[in-house]
């Protein structure tokens, strides 16, 4: 770690893509085409669960403009099953459909209209089967089995979660724990045992799923709006029996990911359609289609915590039922994270957490910002405030008594806490107090709310309350990355990175790291991103890993380039006759005696003809500083100030403060933007976002009925960054961007509790839900 990071590290330089994005110059997948490209539409299942008796595509094939009509039966040369955790997801339905909206037939035509018209000519004969949407019901003895037989383990490795088959609908069961539970619960002064519900949510991105695929003599090329180019490449390579080198996945700007574009979504289908069409094919989903393509996993969490009289946690027991939909996708990992994250960043002598990843007939779940943390943190942080109220201890004091101290391990073998959580909590208190907003009668008075007589609120809109919650999750980031830094003959720099620009600003931050490490001006750095034919391997763009892990790879690649350059400079200028001269590295080059040789000069002299370049390589693997997992703790604290309209159950959020413990903010403005965005996304789910099912179908699968927050919904929001240089990444950086989502819902529920005395254990805290809870409590 450098004592003083070089410029432009730590500087809020404007995003390098800002101009292109606001002028519309920036290219997204939908802006691209290929010569001869046709367009695809997808026929989807109207049933949550049904056997397919027959599919008749003949009339559709004869329709004008139609190039290909494809069902699973037409794909015998393709490995139809894909999936990140378990290979159980058919590219097109095989014999059965398992959720409303499942792709059954793809139609490729000269234009979208022809494809749309031909779709109506496809006849599918279904035999409806019993279905189950709820995860707990799906594990009942008589629940309909969603999968017959076992599925192959999927692409991900390195996790200990075993695929277990105790019940046909149990996809995975994960256990996490340590310590003597009996002793912990036996002598407890207080045991709380409650059930918390966190909803399914749609990770609304401005850009819905879209992909273009084409086969040619070299193999398969896919341009797509995805997060992880190399994972899509690996999946396609396997499905289509091609070497990795023959699959090129290229990702232009992505209009928002939030986890929902992790792994393969529509790429295998688009490629299969291109294979049968014999021409490039574009598949672009609508928002409504995207909403039934992926969602977050809802969870029911039964959480029991044993406390000492002084509020110290003695032990915690948790069972998480995780609704993954009919295909495993990433749910086993989400469930695994939930089991690990339900404990929180606290000193817990004994913990027994189990998470059940359950198959249901809801749409497939996948990754969603926070990956299991929002669900677990909602339960854990809500229960801490409940305990504080019961024990008569200030909820922040109760946290301070239990929070892990720097270096302390959450569980045996875990990386020691790389954050000062107690100080982060203090910062959150201060930040919320400093956030402008309406004066609060009860601000800073988190004492248990006195029982309020029924009807006392009457027309007084606004029982006021403040709530806090801490999120400290073991980052899911894997230490597998590589990067290439090319220093060109004029000293300018090209960085090749597998990290995708999802809007999070990573390409600016990564360029800042390269510029800082090589001592060149930021304007001299160009980033080439996320094209498997051009850049070297990066595992993924998610889990807040890009700044710390890809940043580290770039830092190392830059160091590698510098080392080569210093070597060349020494060979060129390190001798004067027989005398060995000292070659000292300095910003942007070397100094020999009183002469400065810039990188450009060294390269040109080395090759001798004014041209040439240096290639620096950087690798990150599970070794050295990145040997211990988690690679870092993603820590954030949220404070919220609300009032509750007790008549209507409406919550008004006045002020929201975030503290993101990022270690070092390479670009503070972008880091704050990530925290603000995450908090806003968390507030959406905390207040109203929830995918709802009735009779096996999603009933609010559009943006009229499913409302995501808009800027006018923003409370007064202040973001503070904790920068203590204690992370594993460049300059002590840790990941950010998920952290500030995780504690929002419990902070809100805690604020509502301190305002009204009513504990909400089900998110979102919709007006109707709060009204019902208040009515129950007051009657």
């Amino acid at each position, binding site marked *: 770690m450098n004592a003083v990071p070089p410029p432009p590290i730590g500087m809020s330089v404007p995003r390098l893509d800002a101009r292109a994005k606001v002028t519309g110059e920036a290219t997204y997948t939908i802006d691209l085409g290929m010569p001869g490209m046709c367009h695809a*539409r997808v026929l989807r299942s109207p049933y949550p669960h049904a056997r397919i008796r027959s599919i008749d595509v003949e009339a559709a094939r004869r329709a004008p403009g139609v190039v290909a009509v494809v069902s699973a039966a037409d794909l015998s040369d393709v490995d139809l099953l894909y999936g990140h955790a378990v290979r159980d997801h058919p590219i097109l339905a095989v014999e059965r459909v398992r959720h409303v909206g499942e792709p059954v037939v793809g139609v490729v035509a000269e234009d*979208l*209209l022809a494809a*749309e018209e031909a779709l109506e000519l496809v006849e599918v004969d279904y035999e409806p089967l019993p279905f189950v949407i709820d995860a707990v019901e799906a594990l009942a003895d008589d629940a309909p089995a969603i999968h017959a037989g076992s599925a192959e383990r999927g692409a991900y490795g390195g996790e200990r979660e075993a695929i277990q088959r105790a019940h046909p609908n149990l996809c995975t069961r994960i256990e996490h724990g340590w310590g003597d539970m009996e002793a912990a619960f036996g002598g407890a002064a207080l045991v709380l045992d409650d059930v918390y519900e966190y909803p399914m949510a749609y990770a609304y991105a401005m850009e819905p799923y879209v992909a273009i695929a084409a086969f040619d003599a070299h193999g398969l090329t896919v341009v797509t709006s995805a997060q992880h180019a190399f994972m899509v490449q690996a999946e396609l390579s396997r499905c289509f029996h091609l070497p990795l080198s023959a699959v090129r996945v290229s990702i232009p700007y992505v209009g928002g990911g939030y986890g929902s574009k992790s792994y393969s979504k529509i790429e295998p289908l688009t490629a299969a359609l291109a294979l049968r069409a014999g021409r490039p094919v574009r598949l672009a989903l*609508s928002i*409504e289609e995207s909403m039934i393509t992926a969602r977050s996993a809802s969870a029911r969490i039964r959480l029991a915590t044993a406390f000492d009289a002084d509020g110290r946690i003695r032990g915690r027991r948790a069972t998480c039922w995780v609704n993954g939909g009919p295909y495993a996708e990433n749910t086993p990992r989400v469930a695994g994270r939930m089991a690990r994250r339900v404990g929180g960043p606290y000193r817990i002598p004994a913990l027994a957490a189990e998470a059940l990843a359950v198959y249901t007939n809801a749409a497939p779940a996948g990754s969603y910002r926070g990956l299991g943390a929002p669900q677990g943190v909602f339960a854990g942080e809500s229960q801490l405030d409940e305990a504080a109220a019961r024990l008569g201890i200030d909820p922040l004091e109760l946290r301070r008594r239990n929070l892990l101290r720097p270096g302390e391990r959450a569980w045996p073998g875990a990386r020691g806490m790389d954050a000062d959580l107690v100080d982060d909590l203090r910062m959150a208190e201060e930040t919320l107090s400093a956030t402008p907003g309406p004066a609060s009668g009860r601000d800073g008075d988190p004492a248990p709310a006195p029982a309020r007589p029924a009807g006392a609120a009457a*027309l007084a809109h606004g029982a006021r309350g403040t709530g806090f919650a801490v999120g400290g999750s073991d980052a899911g980031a894997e230490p597998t990355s590589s990067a290439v830094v090319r220093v060109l003959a004029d000293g300018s720099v090209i960085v090749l990175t597998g990290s995708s620009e999802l809007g999070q600003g990573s390409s600016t931050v990564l360029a800042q790291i390269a510029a800082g490490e090589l001592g060149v001006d930021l304007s001299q750095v160009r980033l080439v991103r996320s094209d498997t034919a051009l850049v070297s391997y990066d595992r993924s763009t998610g889990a807040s890993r890009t700044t710390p892990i890809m940043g580290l790879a770039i830092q190392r690649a830059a160091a590698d380039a510098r080392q080569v350059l210093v070597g060349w400079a020494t060979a060129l200028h390190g001798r004067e006759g027989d005398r060995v001269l000292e070659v000292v590295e300095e910003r942007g080059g070397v100094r020999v005696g009183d002469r400065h040789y810039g990188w450009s000069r060294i390269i040109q002299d080395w090759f001798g003809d004014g041209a040439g370049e240096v290639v620096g390589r950087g690798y990150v693997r599970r070794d050295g500083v990145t040997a211990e997992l988690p690679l870092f703790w993603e820590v954030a604290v949220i404070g919220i100030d609300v009032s509750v309209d007790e*008549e*209507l159950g*409406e919550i008004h959020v006045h002020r929201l403060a975030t503290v993101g413990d990022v270690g070092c903010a390479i670009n503070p403005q972008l880091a704050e933007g990530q925290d603000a965005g995450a908090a806003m996304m968390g507030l959406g789910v905390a207040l*109203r976002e*929830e995918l*709802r099912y*009735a009779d096996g179908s999603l*009933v*609010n699968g559009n*943006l*009229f*009925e*499913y*409302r995501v927050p*808009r800027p006018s919904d923003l409370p007064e929001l202040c973001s503070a960054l904790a920068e203590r240089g204690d992370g594993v990444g460049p300059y002590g950086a840790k990941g950010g961007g998920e952290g500030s989502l995780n504690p929002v819902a419990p902070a809100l529920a805690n604020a509502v509790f301190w305002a009204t005395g009513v504990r909400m254990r089900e998110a979102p805290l*919709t*007006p*109707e839900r709060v*009204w*019902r809870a208040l009515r129950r409590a007051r009657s």
Partner: protein
Amino acid sequence: MIRPFTLHRPATLDEAIALVHGLPEATFYRGGTELLQVMKMGFARFEHLVDLKPIAELQGVSAGEDGWIRIGAGATHRDISSSGIVARAYPAFAALECRLANPRVRNVGSLGGNLCFAEPHSDPAAFLLAVDARLELQGPTGRRTLTVDEFVLDALTTDLRPAEVLLAILLPPAPDDEIVTCERRAFVERPAASVTCRLRFEDDHVSDARIVVGAVADRPAVARAASESLRGVRLDELEEAARSLPDGLDPLLRYEDDPTISGEYKAHLATVLVRRAVLAAAEARHGI
């Protein structure tokens, strides 16, 4: 996806009516905030859209000599919320038009389009029913005038005849002794309840009351029981009367479940909103 259609831009009303009358699968088009949505979703198909934006008779807000306010059916929500004429006579309506939907809809969506679409989860219809607005229509066979109750028949269903166009919305003069207040709540994109309360005061009591509840069922409806219970109430007892309104306001009113909001909650919501609207009116009356 939206299917291709031909867009016609006639200069006169007669031309527009003749086009819709004569062309197959043709309809009128103004802001498109509702129409283009349902076309995109495949719920409706039209080969020809006849744009009403160029037609002068459908634009603008004007005050007649008889005291009635004429709002061109093509006037956007923004036109209405920024109209001084509307704001002076019915400030509650101007405020309502200022809050409905979102800025994009308010900028291009028209009041006429809103009514013709008859989406049940809508704000303006309840207000217009409460103040007894008149709707002026013109079709191939002539003009007629309807009340909102006559015009809105059911969810997404109006009394519009083939090729008939809504010309204008007429607001009656606002008497000095009358106060109109609106309250609404939208938890998703469209309102869960939108209520209008129109109270007429005579000396120290309410001489007439008309309470309309919108967005809770197929069409906006007058809450007769609640309206009745406020008539004759003395001003100093109005608060008490407002608090005593029966839950649901009228046994004849229906509150339907929305995908994410129960009818039971909507009944409670409407009751509280009406109570607040009545109290706001009482407060305004005190201020007069």
